[in-house]
């Protein structure tokens, strides 16, 4: 697997649907995308994060005529799509030359349809990232490099079990949940899984928000400096790539 040489993936959130000043928001997205891509980073575009309907990464790239350099775009894909939309996303990614797909179960909302097991011919009670990875592998073969999420905040037995299932379904790399310090479960999983782990660093000073996102309390007694934290994680995991969530492009980008 040819992962990005700069060893940093920068998350860029697409504009929300039903928001005012669409053109301005699209321009801001394009500026961030180009800034990250021009500097050689991999741009990672989320998929309806927190259940809020946003624009899909591939349609933004198409409509805004953004360039796709090899290995420099990763699209998130969750299970809250109709089958026809799912095919639309994947076919478009294939056409655009987007290779890396991060498959996650995702956050639903009443507005977002959840993929049904019958639609992708699987017998499970619901479609999770495991079933979605298997479906993409079945239909698209090796067209994509598929990643999945590793949640070190989940109970260990559950997460290791899911890790194995994700790899068996076709996941080729893992991205952790945001880390503030080295984590024993991540290290155990890295050592036993045999696939690359990308470490997610939390670039927002708001640790409470991280707790809200992952659904459990993250202790942080001192004032949190995200850049300092990222540097310490880089030292702790010198051989790993990093995924930077909620990076402030104005104040933090030049410090990378």
């Amino acid at each position, binding site marked *: 697997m040819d992962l990005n040489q700069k060893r940093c993936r920068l998350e860029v959130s697409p504009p929300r*649907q039903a928001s005012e000043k669409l053109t301005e928001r699209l321009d801001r997205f394009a500026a961030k995308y180009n800034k990250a891509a021009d500097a050689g980073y991999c741009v990672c575009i989320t998929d309806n994060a927190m259940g809020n309907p946003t*624009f899909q990464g591939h*349609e933004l790239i198409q409509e805004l005529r953004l360039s796709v350099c090899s290995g420099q775009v990763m699209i998130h894909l969750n299970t809250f799509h*109709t089958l026809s*939309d799912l095919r639309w996303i994947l076919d478009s990614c294939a056409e655009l030359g987007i290779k890396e797909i991060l498959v996650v179960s995702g956050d639903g909302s009443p*507005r977002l349809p959840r993929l049904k097991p019958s639609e992708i011919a699987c017998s499970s009670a619901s479609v999770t990232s495991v079933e979605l990875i298997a479906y993409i592998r079945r239909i698209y073969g090796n067209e994509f490099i598929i990643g999945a999420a590793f949640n070190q905040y989940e*109970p260990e037995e559950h997460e290791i079990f899911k890790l194995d299932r994700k790899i068996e379904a076709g996941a080729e790399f893992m991205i952790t949940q945001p880390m503030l310090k080295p984590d024993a479960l991540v290290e155990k999983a890295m050592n036993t899984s045999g696939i690359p782990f990308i470490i997610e660093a939390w670039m927002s000073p708001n640790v409470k928000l991280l707790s809200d996102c992952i659904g459990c309390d993250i202790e942080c007694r001192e004032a949190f400096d995200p850049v300092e934290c990222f540097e310490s994680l880089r030292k702790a995991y010198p051989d790993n790539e990093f995924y930077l969530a909620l990076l402030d492009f104005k104040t933090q980008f030049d410090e990378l």
Partner: protein
Amino acid sequence: MKIVVCIKQVPGVSSVKIDPETKRLIRDGIISVINPFDYYALEEALRLRELHGGTVTALSMGPQKAELALREAIALGTDSAVLLCDRRFAGSDTWATSYVLALAVEKLGDVDLVLCGRQAIDGDTAQVGPGIAAHMKDWPHAAGVSAINGFADGILSVKRMTDNGYDECLLKIPAILSVNKEINQPRVPRLKGWLRSEHVPIEIWDADQIGADTNLLGLNGSPTRVVRTAPPVSRDKKTRLFEGSEAESAAQLLHELRMISAI
């Protein structure tokens, strides 16, 4: 087929606050969205147009900011949109609102079908669809429609959910349907649709433009009086008790939910 879909912009949160004085919803500072049930009406209208041709117009009564809801309807694929906006509409109950919407449908002219969501999630009355029918005099109406089985020779065949199950009704167009969530799976708009919506003008009509009798608008035209509001009684659920302290019980619950991938 000329179809009109009535949509409403509602608060986008489940925990809304009510002004104790006016007994009306406090809408300031709250994100507004299209009423969830109305997406099903919009989707059904778009599917009918795909099958039978014609046009779909989104219609909404509300403040200027309701224009965003209409833009979303255009992004989804409606051909046009009309906002009914006038200070004299403020305070209208479902009866006065139905009156305004019915006048707008009449003004649009030659409408074959009006679709509404089953109910709005803010008022929860489910009265506007039937109210429009009442104002349109001889137009037939079906509520709780969970499928449109067919349309031929000016007759719509619909499957309707009732208290005892389902029945099938035949309605001669022009007609009005209130649809429920079983009827389809609404699409999510695409960026192309949103970009298109920026270039489609939204017509704004006031009370004079639809020929409304101002005595039948707003609080004056509203027979409803809200005398008291209270939170709903919670429904009975199956319960399971976890042993241990609060923290331990919460951790067990979290663990169980995660083990079944419920969260």
